[in-house]
């Protein structure tokens, strides 16, 4: 039974790397970000545009493809679970394989156009690297969420609806409420609250992480002490990374618990 996690991880990855969906995702991402790079004028604008894809597309695709994989593979998972293996190991292997496949597809889709673009054009690798890192982490977060939703719901339509609801809430509704809060609570010292609230949402986290490198100048324009301490130093980057890590570990751990105790 030793090494089950690794074996399942290997199988999942080798299955998914041949998947047309994953391949299509990588190609489509490459096409769109390549188009932005070559048709746009400025590599910094391109980084911002790719960041927008990371914020909108990567969570949605990770959720949907994650759920699709989960349901398509449910029957094989059943066969695997009748072998002498621990459920937790099977889950961990599946999560690692699935999230790595999605992260790789993203990295190829977003990274290769930048590499090609770098031939003959100036590229700020610190910015690009941060966008790639942010997208990878977002892939891992939303794959964990997808599996959490998947293991808790047998009906795939319901699960898909829930996933899309979560996606919309995190990308749009949450920020709207945050903006409303900022406007309404203007008179109060809300800086720490605003920072804290932007650390709660993984999509915001990824965005703020890139922001710290991309728009340092603009962010420094506002002289609130808490803001500057957080945004103007590596502390913000470190905290954002840690919070994203929590966003990966907590849903993955919850999903593993459900997976280990549920009936198949």
């Amino acid at each position, binding site marked *: 039974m030793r090494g089950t996690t690794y*074996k399942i991880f290997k199988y999942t990855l080798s299955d998914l790397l*041949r998947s047309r969906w994953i391949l299509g995702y990588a190609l489509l991402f490459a096409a769109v970000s390549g188009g932005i790079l070559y048709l746009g004028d400025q590599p910094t604008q391109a980084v911002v545009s790719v960041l927008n894809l990371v914020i909108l597309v990567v969570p949605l695709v990770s959720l949907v493809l994650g759920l699709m994989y989960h349901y398509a593979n449910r*029957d094989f998972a*059943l*066969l695997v679970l*009748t072998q*002498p*293996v621990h459920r937790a190991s099977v889950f961990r292997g599946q999560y690692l394989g699935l999230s790595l496949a999605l992260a790789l597809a993203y990295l190829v889709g977003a990274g290769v156009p930048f590499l090609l673009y770098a031939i003959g054009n100036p590229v700020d690798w610190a910015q690009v690297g941060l966008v790639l890192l942010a997208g990878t982490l977002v892939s891992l977060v939303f794959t964990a969420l997808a599996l959490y939703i998947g293991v808790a719901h047998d009906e795939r339509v319901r699960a898909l609806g829930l996933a899309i609801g979560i996606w919309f809430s995190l990308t749009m509704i949450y920020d709207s409420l945050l903006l409303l809060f900022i406007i309404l609570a203007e008179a109060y010292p809300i800086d720490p609250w605003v920072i804290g609230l932007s650390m709660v949402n993984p999509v915001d986290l990824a965005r703020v992480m890139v922001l710290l490198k991309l728009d340092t100048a603009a962010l420094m324009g506002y002289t609130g002490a808490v803001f500057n301490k957080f945004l103007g130093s590596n502390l913000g980057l470190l905290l954002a990374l840690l919070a994203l890590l929590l966003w990966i570990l907590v849903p993955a751990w919850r999903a593993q618990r459900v997976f280990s105790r549920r*009936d*198949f």
Partner: protein
Amino acid sequence: MVEVEALTKRYGTLEVLKGVNARFEPGRVTAVVGPNASGKTTLMKSILGLVVPDGGRIRVGGEEALGNPAVRARIGYMPQDPRFPENVTVGEVIRWIQELRGERGKGLDALLDLFALRPALNQPTRVLSGGTRQKLSALLAFLFDPPVLILDEPTAGLDPLASSRFKDLVAAARDGGKTIIMTSHVMSELEELADRVLFLLEGSVIFFGAVEELRARTGEARLERAVARLMEGA
């Protein structure tokens, strides 16, 4: 040998197993029969560890099965509707299961020939027909020569030749002293293979005994009619 003692399971308010007791003997084929939603699949999945029962005990080969994945090394299983990762080949699936079990299994070549699976070895599983998937599933169940076999609708989708070969295989396994638990909607098939019948109705055991005993009790010569009679009586 598989022993089930006072097994209970409820899904929400629905009691699926109401204290099931059963002893599946080696060298016997036990047919688990009953109407739809009578608890057949839940019983088998409990033995396999796929369903976590609310109460009772399960022993496989004398060893506690609940929370003990190691006992599954002694069980071979054919699910009702086998599916495999769609982008990998038949050969890879076989190798994966071998790796997971940590053993090569016996007579892989013979089984490949028996089910005529050799030409499919390099095909991705998504192009396989239902029957071929069933054959692959059978191969995986028998490959490791396990003392216990749990077969859920094993012949569904099999062509007549494969079906008859499969039945020969089951008969040989029974004669080799294996404990076999199976379900089927094809009563003639059960009649051909089964030594004993476990009749489940709404989660309770209505009848558990030899086929002859069932015939004697119901006065019907044919198993199908005997079972039908049991259902009517309940």
